[in-house]
């Protein structure tokens, strides 16, 4: 049977009469938690931004037809040479098309699948941008622009014009920002492009596209799917790439394998394509947590010290409490509740401190060419970090309070009272 009112009252009185020590101990926790919240919010904000910079432009699964030499060369059909070493010089890739066979049925199949959020067809074409006597090599990608904006944050990267403008203009083009500045073109102008085979088409610029990655912005532009098919003189089933977005990103390796087997195409999943990216995020998280935990351990030692001192000062009080009928457990609770009060007060102040610092960081201007949509430093305000923070605070103060309070529990009142 525990009489919390009495125990908390004693704990409170001890804390209030030792205001300086209490404040020091609480501030230790406050700074620990505050630093954790600030760091984790800022770091995760940056991580998410960097991840989305690459990942949002990368499909979860990318289907295409790899150009490669046939694994079985004609010589392997000769029985005579069966047991010999085949040496063939000057192997050429297999004669074939860049398009995906059966692209439309694959699209249908993907769109019906539950796991799939969406699948978009693309046609990639090597072209030249013509500017007077100069021609710049580049890529023209035919897309279903409305599907693309639904599935990726492509809209964020269209710095001028809009995806709707492209959809409504048959011969429109979203020009890469690097190209636009090289060619001195802006929205409303016309640009001439030429295919590899030499056909020339005029296109109207309806928007400027800036991904933040210079290599892409200097060479790639977007058109409607149909327009590119017409430019290439191909039929409507001519599709070179299919990009798939899934509901759950973790499903991508399995589905990629399945598609590879089922349709005889090359399928790369996002993990394959961006393995090093994941590693970077993990290490940044690791550093954040390592620093935060170090801070909290330091704060924990502060609490441990202060409680230890308090218990030495209060030896007589502990003896008298035990003599008048408080059990060792009661005494332990008194000191544990002091530790927990320090933890709760320090922790909550720490959350506030962390929040205020995060808000300040969130307001600091951060403008960069590479990220057209970002104007201030990105900060992640997830409630989860605040919950982890307060739990951290409670656990560390609990551990720090445990040993001193256990000592108080086992103090022998007779020894203290007799002064031996």
């Amino acid at each position: 049977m525990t009489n919390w009112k009495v125990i908390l009252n004693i704990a409170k009185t001890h804390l209030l009469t030792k205001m300086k020590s209490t404040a020091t101990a609480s501030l230790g926790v406050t700074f620990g938690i505050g630093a954790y919240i600030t760091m984790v919010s800022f770091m995760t904000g940056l991580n998410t931004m960097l991840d989305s910079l690459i990942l949002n432009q990368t499909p979860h699964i990318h289907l295409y037809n790899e150009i490669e030499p046939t694994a079985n060369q004609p010589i392997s059909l000769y029985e005579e040479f069966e047991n010999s070493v085949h040496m063939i010089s000057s192997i050429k890739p297999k004669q074939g098309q860049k398009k995906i066979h059966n692209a439309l049925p694959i699209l249908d199949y993907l769109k019906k699948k539950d796991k799939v959020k969406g699948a978009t067809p693309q046609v990639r074409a090597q072209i030249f941008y013509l500017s007077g006597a100069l021609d710049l090599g580049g890529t023209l990608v035919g897309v279903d622009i409305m599907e693309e904006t639904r599935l990726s944050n492509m809209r964020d990267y269209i710095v001028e014009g809009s995806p709707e403008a492209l959809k409504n203009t048959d011969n429109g083009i979203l020009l890469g920002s690097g190209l636009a500045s090289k060619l001195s073109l802006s929205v409303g102008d016309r640009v001439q492009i030429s295919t590899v085979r030499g056909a020339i088409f005029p296109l109207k610029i309806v928007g400027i596209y800036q991904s933040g990655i210079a290599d892409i912005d200097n060479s790639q532009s977007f058109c409607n799917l149909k327009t590119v098919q017409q430019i290439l003189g191909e039929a409507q089933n001519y599709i070179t790439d299919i990009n798939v977005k899934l509901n759950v990103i973790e499903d991508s390796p399995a589905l990629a394998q399945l598609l590879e087997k089922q349709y005889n195409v090359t399928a790369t999943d996002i993990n394959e394509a961006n393995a090093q990216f994941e590693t970077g995020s993990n290490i940044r998280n690791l550093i954040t947590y390592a620093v935060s935990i170090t801070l909290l351990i330091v704060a924990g030692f502060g609490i441990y010290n202060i409680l230890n001192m308090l218990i030495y000062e209060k030896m007589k009080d502990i003896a008298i409490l035990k003599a008048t009928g408080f059990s060792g457990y009661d005494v332990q609770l008194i000191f544990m509740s002091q530790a927990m009060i320090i933890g709760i007060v320090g922790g909550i102040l720490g959350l506030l401190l962390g929040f205020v610092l995060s808000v300040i960081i969130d307001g600091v201007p951060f403008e960069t060419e590479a990220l057209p949509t970002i104007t201030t430093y990105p900060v992640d305000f997830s409630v989860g970090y605040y919950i982890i923070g307060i739990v951290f605070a409670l656990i560390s103060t609990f551990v720090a309070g445990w040993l001193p309070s256990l000592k108080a529990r086992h103090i022998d009142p007779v020894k203290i009272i007799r002064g031996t």
Partner: protein
Amino acid sequence: MDKVLEAKGINKHFLKPKDFHVLKDITFAIKRGEFASIMGKSGSGKSTLLYILSTMDTEYTGELYLNDTLVSGRLASELSRIRNEHIGFVFQFHYLLSEFSVLENVMLPAKKLARKSHQEIEHDAMQKLKMLGIGSLALQKASRISGGEKQRVAIARALINNPIILMGDEPTGNLDSYNSDNVFNIFKQLKEEEGLSLLVVTHDEDFAKRTDYIIEMEDGRIIDKSVLSI
């Protein structure tokens, strides 16, 4: 008369620094309403005995009965409860919680017992303080009153749960003769008016002579139990 406290064959050894047989076969009893004192030279084991009787020291052999129930070998938490409810304790050095007010100090054991409401406890505590003539100090900080007053506060605290026995370890050892007298008179009054049993360890012969009887100890044994007055 019924026995309030009874010790049967209590033996205790101090093991450090070397084995020392400090209490040898102590057997005696205190009846309801008796006022006994324990006397003896330093090292005779009288304080050690008192701490065993108070249930705070549990490292002994033999049997200890409180109100005819065996308390030896009980769990520490049960003993705390027994101390809280049945035993009042007064020390040589008052030992009040200095950060609390006089009233809070007195109320604390009753709050721990939690048998009465806060108002009732406060009322009881005020009554005890008034009975001991220090009602006016109730709201003072315990660290700001004189030594004699502190000892009276300690007595009030010992009485708050209406114990069956009040134990004192040289309760007057630190007081001048005026305050000693005062404390003795309070004890006497408690015995006569409330029928409280008292057991007091003391060095003060004048004090001891005025109690009902003296238990005299030497080398860990009771050598004499002389009834002085009834």
